């Protein structure tokens, strides 16, 4: 893509185009190939800007990617994933947007051959005028029978002025597939907050504890789980 995208382009609809202009043109995406039977584990804490990754999983290969997106005015992580027969792809991500930050994760997971598996778990929190977006397309090719894919997307809004977008998208050309998708957008439970406050936790501590619980587990088993977790917690502390 040479010209700067516009909002008419669905994949850039919620992007911060002003911030993007300064980054344009983008360098070529990073290409990662996991050969047949191999395993990859990668943790990425975005420092802002646009990160584009093309990931290919050969026959029977598996990859576990953990993402934290919460730094800079605009942070976008794009993953274009190709799965060959029996490949296993797991993506666990946390997005945190405060102030006027825009954070987005855009995935395309292509099940090109039979019996590949993909699991995407997204947890996003937005406060003030922050925006968190997930655009996730799962494309099942003709003949990719036995595809098993899940998109589990949960977003939390801390202020009525914050925004969360969630768009799981399925394009299926095979008939024996499982493609589950769920998306929720909510706010912190007032009853639970009162319960915590009644035990002596000030509102900010109570909120932080609940948000911690909301994202808990996402970084379990990550290559660098403590770094990701402590970075996420530090950011949560600023958001409440």
């Amino acid at each position: 893509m040479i010209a700067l995208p516009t909002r008419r382009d669905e994949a850039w609809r919620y992007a911060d185009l002003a911030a993007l202009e300064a980054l344009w043109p983008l360098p070529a995406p990073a290409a990662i190939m996991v050969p047949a039977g191999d395993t990859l584990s990668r943790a990425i804490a975005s420092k802002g800007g646009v990160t584009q990754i093309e990931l290919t999983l050969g026959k029977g290969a598996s990859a576990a990617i953990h993402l934290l997106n919460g730094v800079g005015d605009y942070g976008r992580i794009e993953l274009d994933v190709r799965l060959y027969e029996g490949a296993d792809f797991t993506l666990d991500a946390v997005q945190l947007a405060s102030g006027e930050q825009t954070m987005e994760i855009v995935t395309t997971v292509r099940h090109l051959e039979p019996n590949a598996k993909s699991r995407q778990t997204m947890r996003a929190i937005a406060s003030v005028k922050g925006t968190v977006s997930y655009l996730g397309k799962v494309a099942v090719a003709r003949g990719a029978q036995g595809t098993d894919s899940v998109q589990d997307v949960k977003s939390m809004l801390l202020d009525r002025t914050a925004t969360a977008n969630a768009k799981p998208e399925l394009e299926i050309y095979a008939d024996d597939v499982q493609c589950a998708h769920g998306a929720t957008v909510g706010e912190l439970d007032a009853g639970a907050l009162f319960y915590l406050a009644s035990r002596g936790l000030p509102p900010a501590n109570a909120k932080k504890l609940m948000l911690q619980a909301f994202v808990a587990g996402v970084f379990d088993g990550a290559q660098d789980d403590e770094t990701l977790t402590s970075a996420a917690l530090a950011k949560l502390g600023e958001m409440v």
Partner: protein
Amino acid sequence: MLQINNLHATVADKPILKGLSLTINPGEIHAIMGPNGAGKSTLAYTLGGRPGYEVTGGEVTFYPRHCEEGQIHSGPTRQSSAEQGDSGLLRSARNDENGMDLLDMDPHERAASGLFLGFQYPVEIPGISNVQFLREALNAQRKERGEEPLSGGDFLKLAKEKAALLKMDMEMLKRPVNVGFSGGEKKRNEMVQMGILDPRLAILDETDSGLDIDALKVVGEGINAIMRTPEKAVLLITHYQRLLDYVQPDFVHILADGRIVKTGGPELAKQLEAEGYDAIMEAA
């Protein structure tokens, strides 16, 4: 300890408490009984400061700290500690040189000043372990009071001791708050929390509901062990006489239509059990 004067409160604009007055002195255990819809839980939530429970009239004064001699109208003020910071708790403490205006305090400040609210339906909070939550809560209270935080080791020791008192498995304390707990386990957990937080005044909203006979005895004995001292007090909200067999009240009040309509000793609860609310309220 607590003085409620002509309290009026609404929930969703509907008047529920309609001029409730009640005085609780240190060392006393009060039971409030009453038919469904009388306003018992509303009283508990209003005293706890739950959002949505709006006070439309009356005063509630809380004397948490200097009631050791049972003199609620004299004693030292919290002025000295008030100079350490300007938190809401201490700010409110200046409102009245003897007591604190409870209604002016946030829920966490009420807790830090020594109020404990035992929930009728304790909330489940997935992802947060009991011990983590309680340690944070206790240390937040201690910080608010200008005390040093408790170390992890000291906290665990305290938690173990209180769990044993309530015959609760320590493993349960490591699980997420109330998640997957039975009704009885949740109530027991409330009492373990009360033991750890060590309040001056406990308001226990139907702590006996959902308990089997053995658990009722354990919980009753727990309340006695934790709260029955000359400087503490308890307000028990209950439907049944049975809990009162274990936790002997000094006063029994009948709450009806947002007011206390009758006050007596333990015999009133027994009379209620035998005759029902209608008979007693007609007589009142």
